[in-house]
C-alpha cells in the first residue's frame, strides 16, 4: 500500500509538470478557478485531519492560512519587523527637561508588566524572522518562492502548536469557540500590524503561484494525510475520534495526537495561504475572517468528515459551483425566469448545501467509496 501511494504521488507530480505548459495557456478566468480549487483542496484536506479523522471541531483554519499568507508574503517582499520598545517606567530626560514634575502614571504598571511576560518572546520571534528573511532572499528563482511557502507553513504550524497545546484539553463546542477566538485574534493583530499594511492590506506581492506548485502541494497534502491516517500510528487519530476515553484507557496519548493533527493541518493551511498570497498578489486581514473558516468547515462536512475523497470532491464542487451558477445566469438561451433564479446564485448555492445535507448527511461519498477501499 505504502509503495503504491508513493508511486501515485510521483505519477501525479509528473503529470502536473507535463500538463502545466498546456494549462498555462488556458483562459485566465478558468486558470483562476483551477488555482482556487487547488488551494481549497489543500485547506479542506488539512482540516479533514482535525475535524474528520481526529474528531475535533476547529473553526479557526483561516487564521492559520492568514499566518502562512502574511509570512510568505513578508518573505517575498523582504519585510522586516521592527522590535517592540521596552515599556517606559520613568519619565525620560527630555520629558523632565520640559516639565520637571513629569511622572509616568502608576496605573500603567500592570500593563507594562505584561511586556516582561510576552514582549521579549515577541521580540525573539521578530529577531528570528528578521534573520531568516535574508536567507530566503539570497535563494534564486523558485527557491525563494518555495522557501517563502515553507516558511509560512512552518510558522503556521508553530501557531497551531501554540494554540493546540493549551486549548486541546477542551472538547467539542468549547474547542470550536477557542479556535474561533484564535482566528479573530490573528485577524485583529494583522489589522493593526503596520509593517504588513495593517487594515489597508498588503499589495504588490510577486506572482509566483502556478498550476504545477498548487497541485503538487495539493497532492502532497492528500498523500501525507492519507498515509498518516492509514499507518499504524494513524489509528491513534481514529481512536481519539471514535472514543476518547477508551483511547486514553488503552494508553493512547490523546493530547499528543490532537496537537499533532492540529500542527499538520496548520502547516498545510499555511502553505495554502502562501499560494493564495502569491496568486492574488494582494492580501487583506478581512479575507481571512471567520466566514473563510466556515467555508472550509462546510467543505469538510459536506464531503463527509473523515472521507478523503468526499472532502476533495466537496472542495472542488464548492469552489466551482458559484462560478458555474454565475455562468448559467448569463446564458441568453435560457428563459427569463430561469436566469432570474440563477441571478440569485448565492441562494441556490445555499439550497444545494441544504439539500445535500438532507440527502447525504454522512457526506457526499461516504458509504459507497468506503466499501470499495480499505476502511478508514
Amino acid at each position, binding site marked *: 500500500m505504502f509503495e*503504491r*501511494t508513493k508511486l*501515485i504521488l510521483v505519477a501525479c507530480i509528473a503529470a502536473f509538470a507535463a500538463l502545466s505548459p498546456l494549462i498555462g495557456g*488556458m*483562459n*485566465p*478566468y*478558468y*486558470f*483562476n*478557478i*483551477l488555482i*482556487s*480549487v487547488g488551494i481549497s483542496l489543500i485547506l479542506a484536506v488539512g482540516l479533514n485531519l482535525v475535524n474528520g479523522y481526529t474528531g475535533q471541531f476547529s473553526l479557526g483554519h483561516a487564521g492559520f492560512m492568514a499566518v502562512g499568507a502574511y509570512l510568505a508574503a513578508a518573505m517575498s517582499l523582504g519585510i522586516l519587523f521592527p522590535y517592540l520598545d521596552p515599556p517606559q517606567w520613568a519619565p525620560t530626560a527630555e520629558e523632565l527637561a520640559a516639565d520637571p514634575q513629569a511622572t509616568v502614571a502608576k496605573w500603567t504598571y500592570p500593563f507594562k508588566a505584561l511586556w516582561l511576560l510576552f514582549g521579549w518572546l515577541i521580540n525573539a520571534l521578530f529577531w528570528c524572522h528578521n534573520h531568516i528573511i535574508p536567507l530566503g532572499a539570497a535563494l534564486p528563482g523558485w527557491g525563494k518562492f518555495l522557501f517563502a511557502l515553507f516558511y509560512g507553513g512552518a510558522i503556521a504550524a508553530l501557531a497551531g502548536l501554540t494554540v493546540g497545546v493549551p486549548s486541546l484539553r477542551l472538547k467539542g463546542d468549547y474547542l470550536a469557540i477557542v479556535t474561533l477566538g484564535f482566528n479573530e485574534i490573528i485577524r485583529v493583530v494583522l489589522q*493593526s500590524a503596520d509593517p504588513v499594511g*495593517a*487594515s*489597508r*492590506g498588503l*499589495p*504588490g506581492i510577486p506572482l509566483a503561484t502556478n498550476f504545477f506548485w498548487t497541485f503538487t502541494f495539493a497532492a502532497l497534502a492528500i498523500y501525507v494525510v492519507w498515509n498518516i491516517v492509514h499507518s499504524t500510528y494513524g489509528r491513534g487519530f481514529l481512536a481519539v475520534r471514535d472514543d476518547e476515553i477508551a483511547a486514553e484507557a488503552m494508553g493512547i496519548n490523546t493530547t499528543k495526537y490532537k496537537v499533532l493533527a492540529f500542527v499538520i493541518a496548520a502547516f498545510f493551511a499555511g502553505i495554502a495561504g502562501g499560494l*493564495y498570497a502569491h*496568486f*492574488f*498578489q*494582494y*492580501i*487583506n486581514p*478581512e*479575507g*481571512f475572517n471567520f*466566514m*473563510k473558516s466556515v467555508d472550509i468547515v462546510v467543505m469538510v462536512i459536506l464531503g463527509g468528515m473523515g472521507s*478523503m*475523497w468526499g472532502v*476533495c*470532491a466537496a472542495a*472542488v*464542487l464548492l469552489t*466551482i459551483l458559484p*462560478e*458555474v451558477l*454565475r*455562468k*448559467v445566469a*448569463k*446564458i*441568453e438561451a435560457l428563459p427569463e425566469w430561469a436566469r432570474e433564479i440563477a441571478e440569485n446564485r*448565492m441562494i441556490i448555492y445555499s439550497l444545494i448545501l441544504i439539500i445535500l445535507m438532507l440527502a447525504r448527511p454522512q457526506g457526499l*461519498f461516504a458509504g459507497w*467509496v468506503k466499501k*470499495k*477501499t480499505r476502511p478508514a
Partner: protein
Amino acid sequence: MRILPILKHALCSLPLFLTATAAFAQNEIIVGEFASLTGGSASFGQSSHKGTQLAIDELNAAGGVLGRKFKLITEDDQSLAGQPATIVRKLITQDKAIAILGEVASSKSLEAAPICQQNNIPMISPASTNPKVTEVGNYVFRICFIDPFQGTVMSKFALGKGYKKVALLTDVKQDYSVGLSEFFVKHFTANGGAIVKDQKFSTGDKDFKAQLTSIKTTKPDAIFVPGYYGEVALIAKQARQLGIKVPLLGGDGWVGDSLLKVAGNSLDGCFFSSHFSAEDKTPAVQDFVKKYQAKYGQAPDDMGALGYDSAMILADAIKRAGGTDGAKLRDAIAATKDYKAITGVITIDEKRNASKSAVIMAIENAGFKFLETVAP
C-alpha cells in the same frame, strides 16, 4: 484509491461546465463592472451599481458613443476576498470588457487593479480612497478625492469662516483620520492658522472627557474631529455637556445613520466635507437626483453619484479616444480635464487621482443641510 479518476474527471470537466460564452453584437462596447452586491459592504455596492446602470441606460438612450451602444456586465464579488480577482479575470478574458468600473472598497480594488494593469485594461474606481489603489499602475484611476484632500478642504473652509485657533481630536487607529489631520494642519498653519491643542483617541473609545477638558482650556474657535460617526456622535454629546459651544469640523466619515440618532441636537452648527449632496441646487445635480429617484424610488447617495460619474467619465474618454483600444483609452482617461460631473468638476492628475471639489454639509436641527461647494 479508485476515487482518483473521479477527482480527475471533475477537474477535467471544469472548462466544459463553464464554456457557455454569451453571444453579443460585435458593435457593442462591453463595460465590465464588479461590485459588492451582496455581503458586508453590499449597501455601498448596490448604490454604486445603481448609479452606474443609470448612466449606461442614459448613454444608450442618447444613442451611445461613436455610434455604438454600451453593454454593462456586472458581477457580484460578495464582498469576499479572492472574488474580485476571479471576476475581473472573467470580465476581461471572457466577456472582453474594454474597461472595468469598480469597486467602492479599497481592498477589493487593490485585488483587481494588478489584473487590469497586466491586461492593459483601464480601470476606474468610483470610490476607493486608499492612495495605494492608483499606485498599482498607470491603467488604474479613481474619480473620488483621496483622504488627505478632505483635510485641505476643511482647512480652507475653516479659514474662510475666520477661525484662527483650532484644536485637533484625531482617531489614531484610522489611517483615514490621521491623514485628514495631517493635511489639515499643513494647510491651516501655512495659511496663518494655529493649532492650539492636538488630542488623540482610538476607535471604540466611549469617554472623551479628558481630551475635551484639555481642549476647552485653550479656548479654540473650532475643533477638527476627522473620525467616524460612532465616536463623533459621542464626542459631540460630551463636548456640549462640558460646555464647549464651538463648532466641530469633520470629513465624510461622519456620514452614518446613527450619527444624528446618537448625537441628537448636539451637532447643530457643525460642518463636514462630503462627496455629494442631493440638496445641491445645481441643475445638473437636480436633474440626476430626479432621474435616479424616478428609476429607483429613492434619493441617490454618495456612492450612487460616484458610480454614475465613473461610467460617464469612461464614456467621455471613449469619445475623445475615438475607440476602445486599451492604451489610447488609458491616455484619454488620464487627459480628463475639467469634466463637469455630478460630484464636482473632475480633473485627473498625474497620479491618476481625481482633483475635484468637495461639498460642505452643515448640521442644523439634527439634520444635514448642503452649504457650499469648495474647489480644490
